[in-house]
């Protein structure tokens, strides 16, 4: 009986897994606004940031930490990338949304290498041109978004597109 029960093909689909990631600080704050705006439905959400302590907004949720890094810190960047790869292989999310900065970019690289699609939302702090990380992300993510209408390139399907802004 038990065998028959477990062998029965299931019709229910696995919940879709949406991963939200940003380095801690202003990028994280913007990510939390996005989370607030997202219809969650019955999707599974996970959060990734660089804070050792679980950020207040992620307490009780699925939170993972990756090492922080800045431009020029090659060793830290490598640690961050390898930690991101491990996370992606373990969790296999269906979609990654990140607001940056460098840790977000490295996680986006890890995501694309392991078959997860990526939406990049460039920080609203970059009103005059895309951020350095954003310009790199635009080359390989599935969709790159800017929060400034005048920075959008509407002739390019992968972006940057303007969807609106947290401000």
């Amino acid at each position: 009986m038990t065998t028959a029960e477990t062998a029965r093909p299931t019709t229910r689909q696995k919940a879709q897994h949406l991963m939200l990631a940003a380095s801690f600080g202003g990028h994280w704050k913007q990510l939390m606004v996005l989370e607030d705006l997202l219809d969650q439905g019955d999707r599974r959400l996970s959060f990734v940031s660089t804070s050792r302590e679980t950020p207040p907004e992620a307490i009780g949720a699925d939170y993972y930490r990756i090492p922080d890094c800045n431009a020029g810190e090659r060793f830290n960047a490598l640690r961050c990338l390898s930690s991101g790869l491990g996370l992606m292989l373990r969790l296999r999310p269906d979609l990654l949304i990140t607001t940056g900065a460098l840790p977000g970019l490295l996680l986006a690289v890890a995501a694309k290498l392991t078959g997860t699609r990526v939406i990049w939302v460039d920080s609203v702090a970059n009103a005059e041109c895309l951020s350095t990380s954003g310009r790199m992300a635009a080359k390989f993510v599935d969709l790159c978004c800017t929060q400034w209408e005048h920075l959008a390139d509407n002739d390019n399907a992968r972006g940057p597109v303007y969807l609106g802004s947290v401000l």
Partner: protein
Amino acid sequence: MIFMTVGTQLAFDRLVRSLDAWVGPEQRYPAFAQIGRGEYLPEHISYDRYLDPEAYQKYLQAAQVVVGHCGIGTILSCNDQGIPVVVVPRRFDLGEHRNDHQIATARQVESRGLARVVYDESQLGAVLEEVLSGEQKPEAYHKERDRLARNLNRTVNRFLGTAGELS
């Protein structure tokens, strides 16, 4: 009290020094400063280099006004909690940031009424007095968020194959 925060990444001695001078030996108003890796140590106000998220939130809630660099994280946190915020943008020519993006951000948040901006730090005291004597709480209105919510959800649904036309 006044809560000052310069963010976690870079020092901002010019800002710390001007608040310290305004509070002065006469202790014009109680204040606490988070000064990061700054070299200037305040003489008239208590301070800490960094705060964990919990302590940061505690100071925010206790503040009548927040004084900060023009960082998106600081501005969004204050907007969400209805706390008046006065920001001084970091300047590239003074070595306070990698470029002048905070000045561009400052113009935008100012035009949307999301923060009071002080470009010349000698005006900080005057603006603080004005804000502290003001009765009305700021009503931050993020006019581009509705659009972002609509478009972001449509985009995520398209990526995850759970389409459904949104208006």
